[in-house]
Every structure is written in structure tokens, then in C-alpha cells.
């Protein structure tokens, strides 16, 4: 019997002793990337927690190539690297733009849109910890409604979370998916599928951050799974013009199978101050999201 890629292929690339906080979702995701691509990947990383996690020159916590780039440029740099590899006939190295929600949903949106429209051959992964964590938990357009951040300190964020996956679907790119740190095997198979498709691929990866979301670091995976189990974070792939629900989310088409959103909210200090009215409207947000998904299946 051959050995499964997870964990065996994830052993060598992510090196111990990086600068991530205990319980950080970022290196968990990198282990999954390495299980698929080994050291044959080039990560293009704009300013974010990830830039810090890999450590300072002359060290690098990843046994893979990393290009540190300024904000807003990740998708543009990755486009260039992907084209250069193609010109040189290198076909066994995966280019991955790896950016936070701030660096994607806000600051990197223009270059992301450009790369998608030109359909460059790389995978863009937005790891979504739902705020600007590296600079001290400021709200981003991807912060969910009701969440405390240092820039929404009293009432929590008033606006709805921006759905970047939908924006990318509207670009007509060949592959868009949502994934979660709580479902590493699902994330793994999405990366495998994405790597076989030529052109622009986008993955939105839900990545609970214990520091910014105010929960015990041991619960990173538990919180990620609850987001899916409550139906707040829907796991799907979009290709061939329609949504394909992923395994963990499939039973939740039936609303009675979804856990109440409170179970997700109550584990996190950032939702400590939400009142009943807010909980109700977050529940409505879940129902509306599912209606949208159903219409596109």
C-alpha cells in the first residue's frame, strides 16, 4: 500500500520553529500545500502575518521558494513568474500567490482582477483570517458583521463580509473553490484538482486566528469546523459553469442538519458583545448564502 501524502509528504517542507503564534492556521495550510507540491512550489507572499511567520533573512521556515512582495502586487508578480516559467519550459513547479484577506479583498483586488481576466496559469490562495492581523487586528472588508476588531471596538463591524469567491466566479475563471483549515483533506483534493487545470485558479481558505478572534489556540480546527457545520462557511468548487458542493457541506443543504450559529459564535471573544438581534440576522445571512449557492448548483 502506498503511503498517504498527508502526513507523509507534509513532513519535510514546513520546518519547526517558525515565528507563528501557537495554534496559527497558516503553517497548517502550508503543510497541505507541501503534501501536494513538495518543494516544487513558488509562494508569492505580500505583507501579512505570513511574511513574518517564515522568519527573517537569512532564514526561511519553508523548504520551498518564497518571493516577498509589496502589498497589491501579489497577483501581478505571480502572473510574471508563471509566464516566465512557461517561456522557460518549466512545467513541474506550481506558482502560488499566498495572500491574506486584507491583501486580497481590499488592497490586492485590482491586480487580482487583472490576473484573473488575463487568465494566467497560477493558483491564488486568499487565507482568510478575517482582519488585518499582522498590524493588530484591524477590520477588513472580509471581517464578518458583528465581529469585534480594534477598529470596530464598541458595536462590532456593521457591514457584511465581502464574498471574494463570488467576485472571482464573476470573472469567469476556470476554477474557484472555498476551503477550510478544519478540512485538510478537502483542501488537499481541491489543490490537486486546481493543479491540473490550466489558467487562473482561486481558492478562498477559511483560517481561524486564535489571537485576532479571541479563542484558545487549541481550538483553531474546532472553530474552523464549526463555521462549516453551522453553514456559515460553505465548502464548494466552481467549474464547468456551476457550483459543486464539497463533501462536508453537502448534507447541510438540508437546513435542519445545520448547527445554530451561536455554537460557532460563542467560542470566540470577538463575538462576545453580539445581541440576540445580531445573532438572528447572522442566521438569516446563512440562509441567504445557501439560497445563492442552490441557485448556482
Amino acid at each position, binding site marked *: 500500500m502506498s503511503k*498517504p501524502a*498527508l*502526513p507523509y509528504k*507534509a*513532513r519535510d517542507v*514546513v*520546518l*519547526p*520553529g*517558525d*515565528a*507563528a503564534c*501557537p*495554534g*496559527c*492556521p*497558516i*503553517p*497548517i495550510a502550508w*503543510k497541505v500545500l507541501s503534501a501536494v507540491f513538495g518543494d516544487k512550489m513558488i509562494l508569492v507572499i505580500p505583507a501579512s502575518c505570513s511574511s513574518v511567520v*517564515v*522568519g*527573517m*533573512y*537569512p*532564514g*526561511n*521556515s*519553508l*523548504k*520551498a521558494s*518564497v518571493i516577498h512582495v509589496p502589498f497589491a502586487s501579489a497577483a501581478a508578480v505571480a502572473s510574471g513568474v508563471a509566464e516566465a516559467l512557461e517561456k522557460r519550459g518549466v512545467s513541474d513547479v506550481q506558482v502560488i500567490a499566498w495572500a491574506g484577506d486584507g491583501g486580497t479583498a481590499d488592497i490586492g483586488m485590482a491586480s487580482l482582477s487583472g490576473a484573473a481576466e488575463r487568465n494566467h496559469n497560477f493558483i491564488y490562495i486568499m487565507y482568510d483570517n478575517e482582519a488585518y492581523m499582522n498590524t493588530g487586528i484591524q477590520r477588513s472588508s472580509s471581517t464578518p458583521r458583528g465581529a469585534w476588531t480594534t477598529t470596530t471596538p464598541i458595536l462590532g463591524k456593521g457591514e457584511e463580509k465581502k464574498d471574494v469567491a463570488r467576485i472571482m466566479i464573476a470573472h469567469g475563471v476556470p476554477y474557484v473553490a472555498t476551503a477550510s483549515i478544519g478540512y*485538510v483533506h478537502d483542501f488537499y483534493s481541491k489543490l490537486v484538482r486546481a493543479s491540473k487545470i490550466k489558467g487562473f485558479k482561486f481558492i478562498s481558505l477559511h483560517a481561524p486566528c*486564535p489571537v485576532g478572534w479571541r479563542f*484558545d*489556540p*487549541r*481550538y*483553531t*480546527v*474546532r472553530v474552523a469546523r464549526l463555521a462549516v457545520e453551522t453553514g456559515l462557511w460553505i465548502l464548494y468548487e466552481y467549474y464547468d459553469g456551476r457550483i459543486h458542493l464539497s463533501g462536508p457541506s453537502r448534507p447541510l443543504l438540508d437546513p435542519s442538519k445545520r448547527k445554530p450559529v451561536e455554537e460557532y459564535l460563542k467560542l470566540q471573544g470577538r463575538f462576545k458583545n453580539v445581541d440576540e438581534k445580531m445573532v438572528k440576522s447572522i442566521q438569516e445571512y446563512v440562509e441567504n448564502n445557501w439560497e445563492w449557492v442552490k441557485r448556482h448548483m
Partner: protein
Amino acid sequence: MRVVVEPSRYKIPLARPSIGVAGKTGSWRLERPIVDNNACTRCFLCEIHCPVNVIRVEPETGVSINYDYCKGCGLCADVCPVGAIKMVPEE
């Protein structure tokens, strides 16, 4: 005028893969994961999820943890389906 660049005079500032870019992160630990290898079913979930990549599960010998770098987050104990990992306070 043609400028001749001598390659040997330039160092490219390339960072190299290294263990412990943030030092021996085991010193951050407040709690230590202790594994009961008799209870362990070798499901690999703790190894797959450890953010520091310091857990190794071997079918014969069971689970081992590199405490030089384990940050004591407790995530392995939370994902273990049979409760084979306990977090105990560091001395």
C-alpha cells in the same frame, strides 16, 4: 562604456531554509502535550494538524513529539479522537 560585473563580488541575499527561524520555540510553551501510546490508534490526525510540524506518528512505535520546538498550543490534544493526548502544565 561597458560595465563589467564580476559575479563573485556580489552576494545575492537569498534566505535559506532553516529550522528555528524564531529560535527554540519550545521555550514559549506553558503546557506540554503528553501522549498515551497505548490509547493511540495511529490515526495521524495530530501529526497532520500540528502547526509546528513536530509530531511524528509511526505505526509501530506510536507518537513522538519534538519538545525543542513544540509551542504547547494544545491543538493536537483537541483533534485527537480518542483523547490520547493530555496537556499538562510545564514546571
